[in-house]
């Protein structure tokens, strides 16, 4: 796993300061969506090898949710954004 993550608010930090909370790309269904949509969102996930966007919580730092764009094979980190900016850029609430 990438051992240094550059938080947009705190700078370069060791991975021990973060907790990882899974894939960021699946879009959360609306509250009234069908059970099938929620089942797919909660249980059916890809397990990709390579480039991957993931939610990281900077638990011991700014306590913001971040999206880390990284390669889980080579450990390269391509970018880290605040999750609020990530969601806004994607155009969903």
């Amino acid at each position, binding site marked *: 796993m990438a051992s240094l993550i550059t938080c947009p*608010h*705190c*700078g*370069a*930090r*060791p991975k*021990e*300061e973060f907790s990882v909370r899974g894939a960021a790309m699946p879009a959360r269904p609306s509250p009234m969506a069908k059970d099938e949509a929620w089942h797919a969102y909660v249980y059916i996930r890809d397990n990709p090898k390579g480039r991957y966007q993931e939610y990281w919580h900077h*638990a*011991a*730092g*700014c*306590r*913001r949710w971040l999206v880390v764009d990284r390669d889980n094979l080579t450990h390269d980190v391509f970018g880290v954004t*605040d999750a609020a900016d990530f969601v806004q850029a994607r155009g969903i609430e």
Partner: protein
Amino acid sequence: MSINLLHRHVLEDYISGFETDPNPNHVAVSRRPVIFSVLAHRGQETAVAEALGSAHGVVLRFCSPSEWLLVSRTAGPATVAGILSDIAGASFADQSDGRVLMTISGPSVRNILGKCVAVDLHPEVFAEDYSANMLFCHVAANVARSGPDTFEIIVPRSLAGSAFEELLEMGREHALTRGFSD
């Protein structure tokens, strides 16, 4: 350095009592600091940060883009609460009983803290008056540089004992002493 711990027995402190006379490297714990936690409402971050920055008698510690700690050794909690209630778009809570404030200073301070945090504390990166939340001796803490060789560390009360003990252990080779500041 006035006391060289190389010639001091490892159990000296436990048999003869702890050394509290400050050495060049010293940790001072404040007995009654006033510490408030402040959160800015959505969209008010810049306005609140500006208002907090111009408040008198208090120092501002950065936690996140919308969260700060307001620290004072001189003003009382009522005064600080008064300052904060005048700021629009901010919520605050008195954390004085929930946090512990330690000040570490001395010529070896960066060598000691280098074993406590995984953040670059070089003055060109972590300049004077700079502050941030970081893992300090396995505890989520706020660390600030208040002088060239002086740092202020704020830890949660329940974890203060653990962080303090580990800090002393890291400072032992530099003859780090400890005491209350007031």
